[in-house]
């Protein structure tokens, strides 16, 4: 059950101790931030993949709450890992310990339970929603984590730690392979000795990455659960702002000559089977 609650900004409970580089990235006034929220009333525990709508301003600007995947739950505190993008995230980053804000959640569906090992594909800040999932199923993920450059691979050691095997790419080659993450995945799938058809893929990242991924998974017949993003006004299914085109599977609906229907990312998602998405 999602709740509307007030939370207090608490001392950072999620700083990655094992990863001094990420810890420094996060503590400096850089583009990535960890937010630790202490709910002031009882909450429902979230599942990996779910998200919260978080108040981002004090007056009417920024007006709307912003959606963030839950990064962790520790000592009764909710953790979020985010990247400063625009005025909402900037305004969030300027809050201090003890400030309070209104939060709604947990919202949306969560990543389906994996049956054995799995592949995780993270593009940039997409890692935020995959890490708690990998943390729940430790050492079972073949992780593919790509970003523009080294500086944008946040929580790198944490990610490596939780993976069975981890592959990194950057666009400029400043860390890992100089490649797109989807290309690295393609090589892995074709070269590897693992019966990868049986491996499910869990993915979170920008739309172009997910589109490229869908080409791979559709061709290989691989099941892929992807967390999607859309502009959201409400996050709770009321505004119909966050729609995604989903293919209609039921034959009785296909009658109507309609190949797809709109689903709400915030309610029926954010996690969808990638093969169902009509791009």
């Amino acid at each position: 059950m999602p709740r509307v609650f007030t939370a207090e900004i608490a001392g950072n409970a999620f700083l990655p101790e094992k990863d001094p580089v990420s810890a420094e990235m996060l503590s400096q006034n850089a583009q990535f931030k960890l937010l630790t929220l202490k709910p002031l009333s009882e909450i429902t525990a979230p599942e990996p993949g779910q998200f919260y709508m978080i108040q981002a301003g004090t007056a009417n600007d920024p007006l709307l709450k912003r959606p963030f995947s839950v990064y962790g739950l520790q000592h009764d505190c909710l953790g979020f890992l985010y990247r400063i993008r625009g005025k909402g995230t900037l305004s969030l980053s300027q809050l201090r310990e003890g400030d309070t804000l209104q939060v709604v959640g947990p919202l949306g569906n969560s990543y389906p339970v994996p049956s054995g090992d799995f592949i995780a594909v993270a593009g940039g800040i997409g890692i935020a929603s995959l890490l708690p999932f990998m943390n729940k199923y430790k050492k079972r993920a073949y992780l593919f984590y790509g970003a523009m450059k080294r500086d944008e691979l946040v929580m790198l050691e944490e990610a490596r730690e939780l993976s069975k095997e981890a592959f990194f790419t950057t666009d400029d080659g400043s860390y890992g392979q100089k490649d797109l993450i989807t290309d690295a995945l393609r090589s892995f799938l074709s070269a590897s000795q693992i019966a990868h058809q049986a491996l499910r893929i869990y993915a979170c990242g920008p739309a172009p990455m997910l589109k490229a991924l869908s080409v791979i998974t559709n061709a290989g017949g691989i099941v892929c659960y992807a967390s999607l993003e859309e502009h959201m006004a409400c996050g709770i299914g009321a505004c119909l702002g966050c729609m995604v085109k989903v293919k209609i599977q039921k034959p009785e609906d296909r009658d109507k000559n309609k190949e797809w229907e709109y689903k709400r990312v915030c309610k029926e998602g954010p996690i969808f089977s990638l093969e169902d998405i009509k791009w």
Partner: protein
Amino acid sequence: MVNLSVTIGPLKLKNPVMTASGTFGYGEEYAEYIDLNRLGAIVVKGLSITPRDGNPTPRVVETPAGMLNAIGLQNIGVRSFIREKLPFLRQFDTPVIANFFGDTVDEYVRAAVELSSAEGVHALEMNISCPNKQEGWIVFGTNPTAMAEVVGEVRKATNLPLIVKLTPNVADIGCMAKVAQDAGADALSVINTITGMVIDIRKRKPVLANNTGGLSGPAIRPIAVRMVWETCKAVGIPVIGMGGIMNARDAMEFLIAGARSVAVGTANFVDPVAAIAVIDGIEAFLAEEGIPDINNIIGSLKLNGL
């Protein structure tokens, strides 16, 4: 105890706080967060005789103290609404107001007829901010003749209280209000969203896939309050005020300006419990001011310098 109940024509509300169409889904979306029994009325998402897919995304974008939306009137259609959504709403002791629209006068009439015979619909709210696709895309709500015709035809087709929702994209809202009243409206909703555009300067494209959208939220509140005041001066029928109401103080502005009740819109997105906070806040304000009945303050505006 303060009396909060008001009447909108034949409709008796336990308090003057409704939800604005399109910002409260079909009601059920909010049942997890608030007690729907507490609301003055529930106004549901705009319905058409046939279902609509709506616009491509992005459909929403934030603006300073507001947001633009171009949902494109996505809805499940009048029949599915009656079959799938109304039974849930009938459980509550709160009047349901069905917002509806059409592309032609005939579509309006057909939607009104079907909604009028459904059990649990207590009033109709006509969204006339749509173009008449049969008549060269003239927007019903900005053209007095088109508006008089469509309101008049719907009036003949229903016995339910008929609320006409005016568009603010006009030069003289009082004049349009009179047209709606004369054509048979029992009440008016003021205002719908104001057309706006946001441009992505790097892509040189409008952010919304639909290019333009409707502006709502606190940004438009001063315009909405002025228009409600002008409408109340122009007509005798009850007015439902809306546009940027975030809290009880904002709602009081509309009531003092003459609105018989108010609707909370964008605020529901910002805070799912906003409508309840508005009700509680109005009650607290009246108690504090020693006003026993909400009706004593409705239209109490004293102009300066008169």
